[in-house]
C-alpha cells in the first residue's frame, strides 16, 4: 500500500513523539519507608540463606562419616576381589618349563639336530 505525504508526516510525528515519551518521565524520590522495607527484605533474605546453609550442614554431619566408611569399605572390597581374581600361575609355569625343556637348544635335545630335518 502506498502512502501519501500526509500519512508519512503523521507516521514521522508519531515516531518522534514515541521516542520522546521517556523525556517527560518525572524524577522520583524514594519514600520515607524505603529503608524500612529494604531492611525487612534483607532480614528475610538472610533468614532464607541461613536456613539453606543450616540444612546443608545437617546433612553433611550425618552423611559425611557414613560416606567415609563406605569409601574405606569399598577400597578394601576392591583389594580383596583383585587379589582373589589373580590367576593361578602354577599350571602355566609347569607348561612353560616343559616347553623350554623340549625346545631349548642344548646337547642331546633331538629338536635341534638340524641335519636330520
Amino acid at each position, binding site marked *: *500500500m502506498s502512502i501519501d505525504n500526509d500519512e508519512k508526516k503523521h507516521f514521522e510525528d508519531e515516531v518522534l513523539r*514515541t*521516542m520522546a515519551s521517556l523525556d517527560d518521565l518525572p524524577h522520583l524520590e524514594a519514600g520515607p519507608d524505603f529503608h524500612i522495607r529494604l531492611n525487612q527484605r*534483607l532480614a528475610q533474605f538472610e533468614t532464607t540463606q541461613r536456613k539453606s546453609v543450616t540444612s546443608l550442614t545437617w546433612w553433611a554431619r550425618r552423611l559425611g562419616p557414613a560416606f567415609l566408611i563406605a569409601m574405606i569399605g569399598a577400597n578394601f572390597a576392591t583389594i580383596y576381589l583383585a587379589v582373589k581374581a589373580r590367576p593361578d600361575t602354577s599350571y602355566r609355569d609347569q607348561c612353560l618349563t616343559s616347553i623350554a625343556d623340549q625346545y631349548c637348544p642344548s646337547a642331546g635335545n633331538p629338536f635341534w639336530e638340524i641335519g636330520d630335518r
Partner: protein
Amino acid sequence: MFQEKTPYNDYSEGIGGKSSLAFRQLVESQKNKVLNICYRFVHNKEDAEDMAQETFIEVHRSLAELRNQSDLSAWIYRIAVSKSLNFIRMQKRQKRGGKMGKPISLDDEIEGVSAPAATNPDEALAQKERRRILQEALGTLPKNQQIAFVLSKYDGMSYEEIAAVLQASLPAVESLIHRAKINLQKELYGFYHKKSNKEKRTKDL
C-alpha cells in the same frame, strides 16, 4: 572522575567489614538515582521501587566484591540496569504465557506526571501507550544500544556515567546512542505503518 577517592569509594572499607551504618549511608546516597534508573526501564513507580530494593539486596550480597570495584556507583547502576531488564523479560514471558499483567491504570500515570498532563487523561493514556510501544521497540535492539538510549533519557546521568556503566569509551557510548535512535526510528516507523494498514483493512470490512 570515578577513580578519585570520593565519599562513595570510602564506603568499600566500611562495607567490606559489613558495617551496617556504611551500607545505610550508601543506600541513602544512591537510592534516588537507582530508583530513577529503574523507573526509566520499567515505567512504573512500584516496580521501580521493587527493582531498586532488589539492587541494594544484590549489593549487600556481593559485599566482598566491593573491594575490587574502583567505580562503586557505576557497579551499582549496572546491577540496577540488569535487574530492570530481567524484570521486563519476565513480564514479557508472563504475558506470552497468558498471565494477566497489571491492568493499565490511569492512577499509575497521574501519580508521577506533571500537572498539565495529569489534567488531560486521554493524553496521559496516549503517552503511556507510546512508552509501552517504545519499550517493545527497545526490546528489538542489541542490549548495549537499549541501555545507552534509556540512560541517555535520564537527565541525572551524564554520558561519562553511562560510559562507566557500560564499561565503554565516551565515543562508543555516543555511537551506541546514535545507532539506537536510527534503529528505533526504523522499527517504530514500520510499526505505525503496519498499524495504520491494519486499521484501514478493519474499516474496509
